[in-house]
C-alpha cells in the first residue's frame, strides 16, 4: 500500500534534500534510520539540521516511488558500512592487527585495535569497528569461507 504523505521532498542544487511541510515551510532534511542494523527498512526519520524530527516513515515501502527513491539515494550516499565478504589476511592474531578484507565495496585494509571492537549482533552477525571508527559488518559469520572463519575464530 502506498500512503501519500503531507510533505514534499526535493533535492536542491547544493545536493541537499529540502523538506516542505504542510505549513509550506522549506527546510533542509536528512533521513536517518532508527534501527540501522536490526531493521534498516523500518522506522526512518527525516530530521532537520538541528536534529529535530520533521517526519517519520514507518516503512520505506509505504512511500510513493519518487519519494522513496530520493530517500534511498540519500541514505545510500550517507551510509557507509562495508560488509566483509572474505578475510584475506591478518597481520597477527594479537591486536592491534591489520586485516586485509574483501568487502562489498572493494578490498581494503582495516586496523582492529582490540577484540572488544568486535561487537556481537543478534544472530550470526558481527560488527567490527576499525581504528577510524568505520563499521564493518559481517552478516553471517558461519557463512564465510573456511579460511576467513578460521581467522575470525581466533579473535572471538
Amino acid at each position, binding site marked *: 500500500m502506498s500512503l501519500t504523505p503531507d510533505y514534499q521532498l526535493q533535492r536542491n542544487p547544493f*545536493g541537499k534534500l529540502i523538506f516542505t511541510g504542510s505549513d509550506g515551510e522549506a527546510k533542509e532534511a536528512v533521513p536517518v534510520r532508527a534501527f540501522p542494523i536490526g531493521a534498516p527498512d523500518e522506522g526512518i526519520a527525516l530530521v532537520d539540521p538541528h536534529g529535530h524530527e520533521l517526519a517519520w516513515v514507518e516503512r520505506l515501502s509505504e512511500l510513493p516511488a519518487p519519494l522513496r527513491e530520493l530517500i534511498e539515494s540519500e541514505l545510500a550516499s550517507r551510509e557507509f558500512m562495508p560488509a566483509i565478504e572474505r578475510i584475506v589476511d591478518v597481520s597477527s592474531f594479537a591486536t592491534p592487527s591489520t586485516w586485509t578484507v574483501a568487502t562489498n565495496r572493494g578490498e581494503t585494509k582495516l586496523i582492529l585495535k582490540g577484540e572488544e571492537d568486535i561487537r556481537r549482533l543478534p544472530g550470526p552477525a558481527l560488527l567490527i569497528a576499525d581504528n577510524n571508527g568505520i563499521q564493518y559488518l559481517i552478516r553471517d559469520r558461519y557463512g564465510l569461507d573456511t579460511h576467513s572463519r578460521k581467522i575470525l575464530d581466533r579473535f572471538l
Partner: protein
Amino acid sequence: MTSRTSTRIAASSHPATAEIKESPLPLPEMWKSQVETQMDDNEKILAWLEIDLDTQLRFTKGVVVLTSRHLLARSEESADWQSLELRPGLKLTRRDHAGVGSLELFDQEGRRALWRYTLQLDVAAGRLIDRFTRQLEFLATGALTPPPAHALCPKCETPLLAGQDECPVCSKEELTPPSTWTLFRLWRFARPYRWQLLAGFLLSLATTAATLVAPYLTMPLMDKVLIPYQNGKPIDTGLVTLYLSGLLGAALLAWVLGWARTYILALVSERIGRDLRTTTYEHLLKLSQEYFGGKRTGDLMARIGSETDRINLFISLHFLDFATDVLMITMTTLILVSINPWLALVTLLPLPVIAFLIHTVREKLRTGFERVDRIWAEVTNVLADTIPGIRVVKAFAQESREAARFRAANQHNLEVNDKVNRVWSLFGPTVTLLTEIGLLIIWAFGIWQISRNDISVGVLTAFLAYIGRFYTRLDSMSRIVSVTQKAAAGAKRIFDILDHVSSVPEPANPVHLPAVTGRIELRNVGFRYGTRSVTRDISLTIEPGEMVGLVGHSGSGKSTMVNLICRFYDVSEGAILIDGVDIRSVPVAEYRKHIGLVLQEPFLFFGTIAENIAYGKPDATREEIVAAARAAHAHEFILRLPHGYDSLVGERGQALSGGERQRISIARALLIDPKILILDEATSSVDTTTEKEIQKALDNLVRGRTTIAIAHRLSTLREANRLVVLDRGSVVEVGSHDELMAREGHYYELYQAQARNVDTENGSEGNEEGEEE
C-alpha cells in the same frame, strides 16, 4: 571582580612572525606524471589529497590536486581528469558522517563537485581546504596570507609545544601487534631477583644430579652383589653397606637441596607477582579517562588479578623446571651413552615422537587457552555489570534474566573449556603410553643384548631405573607447553595495559606552575571521540576569578568541555592554556592540583568522612578538615552522625543522602583550595530544598576562584558573570543572563522552556530540556 571578555571566535589571529616556507609533500609517482599533462607550464602543485573512496562509497583510490589555478581530480577507475578553474565565489568544505568524510566544492548556484574519503584523511583534507582558501584569496587580492606560524605536526596538525619534536598524538598510536616474544619482556620483572633465581636454578641442578646417583648405584649392586650371590658367592656386607649408604646419602642430599630450592623459588615467585600487579595497577591509574571508557571493569580486574598470578608462577616455577628438565635429560643421556651407546640409542628412540606430539598440540592449545581467558573475562563482566546495577535489576524484576545471562556466559565458558580439554586430556595419557612402549622396547632390546652377553643384568636394571625418571621428566616437560601458552596469553594481556601509552601524555619538557591566577583560554578547541566530533572550534577566555556557566541541551558538549579543561582527555585540535601555558606542557598531576571538581554523582570512597574530605590532601590537619566541612555546610550533619567525622561511608558504610554526599565532596574540593573550580551538575541530583543548602556551600567555594559551572537548572547559574551557550559542540552565544534574554536566541528558548516546566517540576528532576526534544 572580573572583566567581561567576549569570546574570541576569530580563527588563529596570531600574527605570523616568521613565515614558514610552504612546500607540499611530493605527489606519489602514479599521479604525478598524469597531473603534469593537465597543467600549464607555469602552473604549480600547491597541495593534494589522495582519497580512498569514490562517490558511491566504494574503496577506490583517487586524488584531488590543487594547483595555482585549478582543482584537478581523478579516480583510479576513470581515465578523465575533472578540472575546475579557481574563481572567486568557490567554497571548499568538509563534513563527516559515520567514518566517511565528504569534501564538497560549492559556488553560488550549487554543488560543483563531491569527493569522499575515510576519516583517516580528514586532517589532510583540512590542509587542502586551508590552502585552497588562501589561494583563492591570493588570486583575488594578490597577497598570500602566511600559514599559521606555530609549528604543527605534519601528520595531524596538532600544534607542537616548545621543545617537542614528536607529536604526542601521532606517536601514541601504537598500531603494530605485540611480538610473539612477549614472555621475554617479563625479564624486566624477574631481573631484580636474578640472583635468587640463579640460586634456585643451581639448587634444582644439584637436586637433579643427586637424584641421578641412585639409579647409577643399582648397577654395581646388581652386578657385584646380587648376581654373584645367585651364582653361589656370599654377600659382601661391606660393599652392600657402602652402596646402601650411598643411596641414602643421595636421597638425603636431594631432600635438603629440594627443600631449599622450593623455598627460594616460592619467595621469588610471590615477589615477582607483587611487582607485576603493582606496576600494572599503577600504570592503569595513569591512563586517561578514555581508556577506562573503552574497557569493562571485570576484564581489567581479571587481568590484574589472575593473569599476574599465572605469569609469576610461570617465571618462578615452570620455566625453571623446564630448564632443569632439559639439563636432566642431557645428563641422563650422557650417562646412558657412557654405559652403553646402543641401548642408549634405543632408549632415546621415542623422544622425537614425543617432541613431534608436543609440537602439534602446542598450536591447538594456545588458541584454546586464549579463548578460555577471554571467556573467563566475559563471565566476570556479567558480574561486574549486574552487581552495581542490582537496584535496576530488582526494580524491573529481571533477576531470572540476569541469571540466564550468567548461565549463558558460564555455558559458553564450559563449551570452550570442554573443547580445550578434549585435546589436553588426550595429551597426558599419550605420553604415558609412549613411556610404557619405551620401557617395552628397552626390555626387549636389553634381553636380546644380555642373551648375546653384550651387557650385564646390572646395566639393564640401571637403564630401566633411569628411563622411569627420564620419561616422567618428558611428561612434566610436555606440561610446559600449556603453561607457556597460558603465561604468554596472560603476558600479552598484561602488556596490553603496560604498553598503552596514556592519551594524556606527560610532557617531555615540563613547565612547572607552582601558582596560577586561574586564567583559562580555549583556543579553537575541537574534540573528536571516535568518528564523532563532539566539539568544534571553541574559543573562550575565562578571566581569573570569573564564574562562567555552561548552558545547553544534553549532548551539546558541556561535559566534554569540562573533561578537556580537566585534561581527562586531550584536545584533538587547538589548545587549552592556563595562565598562557598550554596545559599539555604542565605535568598532569601538578596541573590537576589547581582544579577542584564537584560532580553530579559524588563518589565517596570506603573510609571515614574525615578521610573522604581529605582525599585530595591526605596530610590535612583536623582543623582544616573541620573548617572545610563548615564552609561546605556539612559540619552540622556530620556531627549528628553517631561517630561524627569518624563515621564510615562509602560501600556498605553509613547511608548518606545525595545532598549530604554532595556537601562532603564540596568540602573535599574546598580543602585543596584550588584556583579553578569546576561544578559539573553539582546540584541537579537533589531536590530544591537541598539545592539551596548546597548552593550556600557552593557560594563559599566559588569565592575568589575561576569557576566553570554546568547546570541544567538555569536558575542556579544566576551568580555567573557570563553564560556560554553551547549547541551541538559549538559556542553559539555568550553573555550575561540579561543580555542573552534580550537577544532572544538560544538561551532565551532554553529559559522559556524551563520556565514553562517549572510548574510541573517536582524538584527532584533535572530533565526538563529532554522533554523539549
